[in-house]
């Protein structure tokens, strides 16, 4: 049986699919912080967060009428978010190949107040060492997606999700070094 919250969400999604702007706004308001957090974990760039989150939600508004299973809305939204971030990271990589930018132009330090603690900074540093696919996997788990949902989002089997998740956690552990542990 579907829970009340899921039923309500499905109803909002159906209204948004019919072009109801108040429903679309409700969905954006409901998910904006989760998507922004996911984008930050994926890109490690606070200056990308608003722009990429906006791209994700514009894609959502434009494509929501093609979503066949409104109950799968969350998985679908995070698939959009993941793909948008990976596209951005690919473009960034290409730009680095074609433009004679120095590394200092790509690794702009976070403005004061963007990073809360040493642990958070260490986590960001460790995540930056992982492949974007692995970052997406870890961020999706932290976002509360189940293995089955992640397998659907990434289009791989549940067993592959578990194996890749295990490897990604190992890599994260290798690179995670809070300064007070040195």
């Amino acid at each position, binding site marked *: 049986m579907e829970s009340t919250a899921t039923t309500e969400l499905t109803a909002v999604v159906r209204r948004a699919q019919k072009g109801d702007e108040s429903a679309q706004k409700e969905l954006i308001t409901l998910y904006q912080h989760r998507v922004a957090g996911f984008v930050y*974990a994926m890109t490690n760039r606070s200056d990308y967060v608003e722009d990429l989150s906006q791209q994700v939600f514009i894609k959502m*508004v434009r494509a929501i009428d093609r979503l066949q299973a409104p109950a799968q809305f969350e998985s679908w939204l995070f698939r959009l978010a993941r793909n948008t971030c990976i596209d951005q990271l690919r473009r960034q990589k290409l730009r680095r190949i074609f433009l004679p930018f120095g590394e200092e132009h790509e690794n702009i330090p976070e403005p004061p107040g963007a990073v809360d603690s040493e642990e958070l900074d260490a986590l960001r540093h460790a995540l930056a060492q992982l492949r974007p696919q692995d970052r997406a996997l870890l961020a999706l788990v932290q976002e509360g997606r189940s293995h089955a949902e992640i397998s659907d989002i990434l289009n791989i089997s549940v067993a592959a999700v578990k194996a890749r998740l295990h490897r990604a956690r190992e890599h994260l552990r290798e690179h995670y070094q809070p300064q007070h542990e040195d």
Partner: protein
Amino acid sequence: MWRGLFAAGARRLRPGFADHVLRAARRAVELPSLRSHMVLSAATATVCLCAVLFLHDQSVDRDDARNLAEWERLVEIVGDDVTNV
């Protein structure tokens, strides 16, 4: 920690983000999509190709008619010469 990371990302959004997105989405709908750009480009290329083929065909027909007239004139001249001999 992850919660802190997600919260740091969430704090990057300005107030009124949803309204801003909806306005941007409306503008994006008004702009022609990549698909419509491609369709227009393909249609333009087809029209240009048809025009080039038509003009080429006309030019070939005109050249053929002119060559034929030249040959007929030559045949007449040669025929007259043979008769005079």
